[in-house]
């Protein structure tokens, strides 16, 4: 139970974090320094999973992605993919915000200079903006990973709690506590905490290296 949950949790968190890093960096960049009518609305929508109770988000996802939902054909609920979707949706706002702030803190003169030197927008983004925003982005990735690893409410709703298939570490803790297996529950808690600490330390060290 423990091994399966650990392996599943790590896989899910890694995949979800990769997706969220890409998406969050792009949306963060898109909304940095940009003011247009409706910007606050867009920001609020992107931040919803952060403020809504996870079970609400999970339920909404279930309605959207379930068989009768808008994307029903993909058969997502109760699958490994559902765990990834739940973790990704819940951790996305953290990455988006971190990225947006990181890009907003860049000295705009660097992008102006890069443009004056003939760099197109893509080259400017890859060669100048990304490297300079590195630290803020790394912090966002760390937060997103930790959030994805610890995701519970939405996962329970969307993926169910099927051992070996969708039972992540947090769900395993929950079940162990319900069935009175307190020693297993504590072991799982320790494991989860340990993995999270390890990840956060590693990213902090990466950030410090510059």
């Amino acid at each position, binding site marked *: 139970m423990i091994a399966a949950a650990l392996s599943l949790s790590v896989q899910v968190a890694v995949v979800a974090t990769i997706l969220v890093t890409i998406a969050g960096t792009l949306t963060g960049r898109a909304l940095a320094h940009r003011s247009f009518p409706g910007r606050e609305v867009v920001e609020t929508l992107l931040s919803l999973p952060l403020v809504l109770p996870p079970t609400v988000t999970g339920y909404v996802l279930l*309605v959207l992605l379930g068989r009768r939902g808008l994307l029903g054909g993909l058969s997502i609920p109760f699958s490994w993919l559902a765990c990834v979707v739940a973790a990704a949706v819940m951790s996305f706002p953290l990455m988006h915000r971190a990225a947006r702030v990181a890009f907003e803190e860049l000295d705009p003169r660097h992008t102006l200079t890069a443009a004056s030197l003939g760099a197109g927008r893509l080259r400017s983004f890859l060669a100048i903006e990304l490297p300079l925003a590195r630290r803020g982005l790394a912090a966002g990735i760390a937060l997103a990973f930790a959030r994805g690893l610890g995701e519970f409410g939405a996962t329970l709703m969307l993926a169910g709690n099927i051992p070996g298939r969708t039972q992540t570490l947090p769900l395993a803790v929950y079940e162990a506590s319900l069935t*009175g297996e307190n020693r297993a529950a504590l072991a799982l808690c320790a494991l989860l905490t340990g993995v999270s600490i390890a990840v956060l330390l590693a990213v902090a060290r990466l950030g410090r290296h510059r």
Partner: protein
Amino acid sequence: MIAVLLAALIATAVSLKKPMDEAIAAFSKKVPGEKLEIEAAASGVIVAQVEHGAPLDLFLSASPVEMDRAAKTGRLVEGTRRAIATNRLVVVSRKGLAPPKTFDDLMDPRFARIAIGNPKTVPAGRYADQAIRKAELTGTIGRRLVFGENVRQVLDYVARGDADAGIVYATDAALVGADVVPGPVIDATLHDPVIYEAALVSGEGTARAKAFLEFLASPAGLEILAKNGFGPPPQ
């Protein structure tokens, strides 16, 4: 504020929620002034609460197994444990599919996902799991099972179409709308008998909960249960 503190807290298995609401209403008419509050969850969840010291006064379990666990904590009031009802398991399926005619029909591939309660924490799930094993269906449908956290959720999965079929109590099947199609009742010899037990939990509101328990066990209470489709307690 004080009124709330003096209310008796009843924790019941989800499948008993509707009859318990009716019983509380009837009891309050007979004995006005007694405040009763009710919480519904899977029996496994309630046992965990009892184990961790939650201030419950009355526990209604969908299985003696959970009641045994509760008894081990020493928090049950001696001599108050009794059976109050029985139930049957039934197969349901979602609308749009040809419903199964027998339990074995579940083997058909059109039932790609079959929902039952989590066998570890939901008695209905445990009963369903036993039935599946005894009927030797595990090989075929074992991998198609998805777990709900309580019987209501199992019904929900089927109603929404996220599960193609499910195993729930006969009493639940009667509650559903057009989205869920009731199917065959499962042979009772395939699983442990579904016996609901009640017991008082020692705490603040025990005295008040005692009066309600006696009402449940009286003909008036038993009638409410029977009206909702529950069988009488074994003699």
